[in-house]
Each structure stands twice: as C-alpha cells, then as structure tokens.
C-alpha cells in the first residue's frame, strides 16, 4: 500500500553499519557495510575500530540504500536509528547521522531499541507480528527470551543469559579449537559432519530448581575447553567435528527447550527467533522440530535479516510511525545500556528542545576518549 510509512533505519550498535529502507512491512533496501574482517585477528569486536569504520561507511551506506530502494529521501516519513543497547562510541555515530539526516530533511526522528528491532524485522519476512509474540534473541551480544505484546511499546524480558551470550560461546569455543573469528558459521559447518551425541556436555541452568528462562553458557564453555585440553594433554587427536556438534547441540538444546516452554507457559502459539545465532542451521532445525511437536508456529527471518542490519531498525521505525508513537528529540543520546523494556526513546516535548535528563551514564565510559 502506498500510504504505508516509508522509513529509513540506521544501525551502528556493533560492527555492522546498516541502513535499511522499508515501506510498512515491505523491505525496499538493506545496505550493510561490515568491519568484521578487521576485528577477526583480535578475536572479537574492537570498539574503536568499529567506530572508525562506522564513520567511514555511514554516508556511503545511506546513499547506497536510497539508490537500492529507488526512492528520494524527500519522500521519507521518518528516520529511525538504534539508540541502544550496544557499543557507546559505535552507537553515537549512527545516532548523530540519523539526527543530522532528520534535521536536514525535516523528518520525524525515532530512536529505537536494538533488541525490539531484531524482533520487528520478521515483519518484513512473514508479515505483521502476532500479538503477543514470543521471541528468542541470540547473538554474540545477547541471549534473551522476550514476550512482546506490542513491539512499539510493550516488550517484557522473561529471561536472559546470566553470563556469556550464546554467540560469544561459539566464538570462544572456536578460539579454543583455532577456528578463527567469528566462530558461529565455522562451528555450524563442522558440526554437520560430527556426532552431536559423541560427548555429553552440560546443559546450563536446566535443573528443576534453576530459573526457567535464564541461560548460562559459561560452564559449558569451560567444560568444552577442559575436555579439549585433556585430549591434547593425553597426546590424542581432538575430534573437532564431534566437539563442534556436541557443543552446538548443548547450546541449541537449552535455547529451544526454554523457548518452547516459555510459549507453553504463556499460552503463546508463535515463536520468533532472531539475532546472528538464528542463522545456525541446527538451531533452526531443532526449533522447527520442537515447535511442530508443541503446536507452535515458528518464525525465523532469513539469515541476512537475523544479523544486525538497518532494515530491522526501519521496520520498527515504520511501526512507530504507523502507531503514531511520539518522536525523539534533537538531543537524543546513544544509550549503551538501554533496557529492553524501553522500545524507543520518545522526546519530552517533541520539539527538539533540551530536557533535564541526566545521560551522563552513557558517555562517561572509558572508550569516550581514545
């Protein structure tokens, strides 16, 4: 429909500079510039390197998205941007660009939550989200179970990791096995040729007295590393494929089990899985199997929409416009620890004037200055 909101979304919370353009729930452009290769030799995302890359890529990525979408910036109904959570310095590049763009074009600005965007992106793939939606978000930065009665203003955290994120565990195990960074894709590939039952690795927080929806991957990580080190110490070959398969199975077993349980407990018949780890083939397969058995409809966007991108931000922005949510102010700040319950950052008056909130918590981090 032509009267659906046309929104440009900017995402810079980690190492991808993403700019997406959507009309309602239709994806028009999804331009991404990634700095992942420059981080690889450090075994993780280096914030300052990510921020530098965002600055270089920002305007070219915006221009590429507009060209891909074949629209004029003048026709936009709004500019959305990830206001948090994420890396403070990285977020600030996107937030500054979004504010400048919105101001120059005289368009409404929507600072939105990165996690809610990960959920909302599925609208571009599978149509409007059911309400409520149950979402499992798994990536290198997050592992959460969220219940979303209204993606624009009501997202409730049911559980989350108490230590490492799921994707982080993949990275760390890949490091122990000398497989490079990021670890997710290579472990997924090797695991396909391994036996997931070869080694019984522990399932974290799966006891009857453990929190039902929280996750823990730190103990698993240690256990896998110990197992590998013991093999090496004994002078034996490490069966990399079996280790990868057994480790991966331990992760996705817990993720899917808890997600399905949350759906049943809350009476929700849809499960959405998002975040970079949602690209994992075993997670998709096992989730499919368990959801089907439980009578739950599974919604997983294609891998390119699961990882960080601008389209997901645009998708949530379009929903904000459609539902007439309040816009953000010109002094919108990046908030590296924006709680998931704050789906967006509405302004205090909608006219871009300063207000008295104390945002020092965002900017007083160590990486403010070189």
């Amino acid at each position, binding site marked *: 429909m032509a009267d659906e909101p046309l929104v440009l979304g900017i995402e810079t919370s980690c190492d991808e500079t993403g700019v997406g353009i959507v009309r309602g729930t239709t994806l028009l452009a999804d331009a991404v510039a990634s700095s992942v290769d420059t981080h690889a030799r*450090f075994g993780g995302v280096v914030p300052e*390197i990510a921020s530098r890359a965002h600055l270089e890529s920002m305007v070219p990525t915006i221009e590429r998205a507009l060209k891909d979408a074949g629209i004029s910036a003048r026709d936009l109904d709004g500019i959305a941007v990830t206001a948090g959570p994420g890396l403070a310095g990285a977020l600030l590049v996107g937030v500054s660009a979004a504010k400048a*763009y919105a101001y*120059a074009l005289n368009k409404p600005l929507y600072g939105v939550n990165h996690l809610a965007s990960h959920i909302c992106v599925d609208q571009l793939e599978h149509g409007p989200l059911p309400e409520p939606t149950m979402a499992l978000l798994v990536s290198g930065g997050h592992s959460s179970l969220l219940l979303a009665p209204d993606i624009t203003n009501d997202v409730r955290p049911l559980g989350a990791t108490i230590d490492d994120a799921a994707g982080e565990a993949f990275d760390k195990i890949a490091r122990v096995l000398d497989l490079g960074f990021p670890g997710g894709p290579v472990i997924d590939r090797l695991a396909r040729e391994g036996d997931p039952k070869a080694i019984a690795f522990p399932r974290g927080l799966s006891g009857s007295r453990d929190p039902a929806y929280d996750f823990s991957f730190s103990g698993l990580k240690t256990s896998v590393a110990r197992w590998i080190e013991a093999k090496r110490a004994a002078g034996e070959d490490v069966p990399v494929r079996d280790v990868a398969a057994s480790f991966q199975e331990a992760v996705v077993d817990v993720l899917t089990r808890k997600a399905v349980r949350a759906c049943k407990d809350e009476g929700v018949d849809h499960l959405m899985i998002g975040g970079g780890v949602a690209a994992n083939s075993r997670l998709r397969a096992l989730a499919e199997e368990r959801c089907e058995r439980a009578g739950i409809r599974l919604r997983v966007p294609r891998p390119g929409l699961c990882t960080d991108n601008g389209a997901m931000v645009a998708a949530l922005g379009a929903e904000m416009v459609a539902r007439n949510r309040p816009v953000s102010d010109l002094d919108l700040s990046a908030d590296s620890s924006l709680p998931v319950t704050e789906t967006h950052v509405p302004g205090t008056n909608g006219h871009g004037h300063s207000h008295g909130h104390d945002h020092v918590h965002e900017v007083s981090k160590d990486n403010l200055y*070189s």
Partner: protein
Amino acid sequence: MDTATPAVTVALHDGDSVVAETGQVDARRHGELLLPAVDRVLAEAGVKLDSVTGLVVGVGPGPYTGLRVGLVTAATFGSALSVPVHGLCTLDALAYAAGRDGLEGPFAVATDARRKEVYWARYEDHRTREGEPGVDRPADIAGRLAGLPVVGAGALLYPEAFPDARGPEHVSAGALAALAAERLAAGAALLPPQPLYLRRPDAQVPKNYKVVTPK
C-alpha cells in the same frame, strides 16, 4: 562546526562575517549538544539549514568519540543537502583566533589529547602552520617550544611545560568558518572531512561487550 575538543561549537558565516555563533564546553555530551546548537544558530540568524551553501568541520586532531560527532553530522548534512563539506584542522582555527586577538607568530597551539598528552602544532603566523600536527607528552616537546607562546587548553593544562600559555582556551566555530571562508575566497583547497586521529585504535576486546539485559 567543531567537536574535536570539549567545545561543541557551531557558527553561521555569510562569506563576509560570522552571522551567529553558539557553543558549549562539555567533554561528555557532544552527541546531545551539537544538533540543538545548530538549531539555535540557524534560528538566531533566521535561516533554514537548506539555505546553507557549504559546510566546514573541524577534523581534529581530537579525542575520537566527540570528534566523530561533528564529522558524521557534517557529512550527513552534506549528503542530505547536496552541498560541499570541507575539513579544517582544529588547531588551525585556534591559531587563527589567537592571531585575530593580536598574537603574532611564531607561536604554538596545544589541545588536550588526554592520557597526559597534547595535540599540538607550530605556527609561523596565525594562518601558517609548520608541518603536521603531533601528539606528545608536554615534557617531550617543551624544549622545542621553549620561548614560544602556546595557545589553547592543552597549554593551559600544563603550565610547567608551557610557561607562556595563552588563550583562547577553546576553539570557536566562528574562527573556523572565517578561516575557511578566507581560504575558499582565495581559491585555496581545504581538507577532506576526515578525522585526524593521530593514534592507532586500542585493540582491546572488552569482555561481555554487549550484555544488556535487565536483571
């Protein structure tokens, strides 16, 4: 505009003189302060952003996080409005302001680079820098700058190294714009709007860099 130092400073220049200028000194809120400052300057001058025909932004050197706010804002304005975006060394703008205040060369300019270092450069006169800007410990350059007035917050912060420290303490976008207008009118090239970091990034991967869940 310039955000390379604790000053968030914005000015509007009509080719002859500064029409409006505003700014605030707050090292921790560049991201929040810049756009409202742009808005104030334009409102004071009674013009809209889309009547601006060019942009000049301080490219530093400066602490990175704040520096990037000005650069990405200028670049995005340039793209949205289809107007040229120029870069100018932040130290040059400080030198120019010092010269207009009456300081004659040679002198030096120093801004705070944190980590007990300063960004600095030497000037023959207020329009002419000698060499590229550097980043050093004050004690390590005190000998080379002995006897020279040194302008800026970096000088005022280390009086033992720079006994003839002078103002202006902070860069002003008015001076930046005036210097840019002067150079453009003379047909001189300005810099591309790209940051002068002068340091390599710290390659430290933080632990749990994005754990964000409310407990």
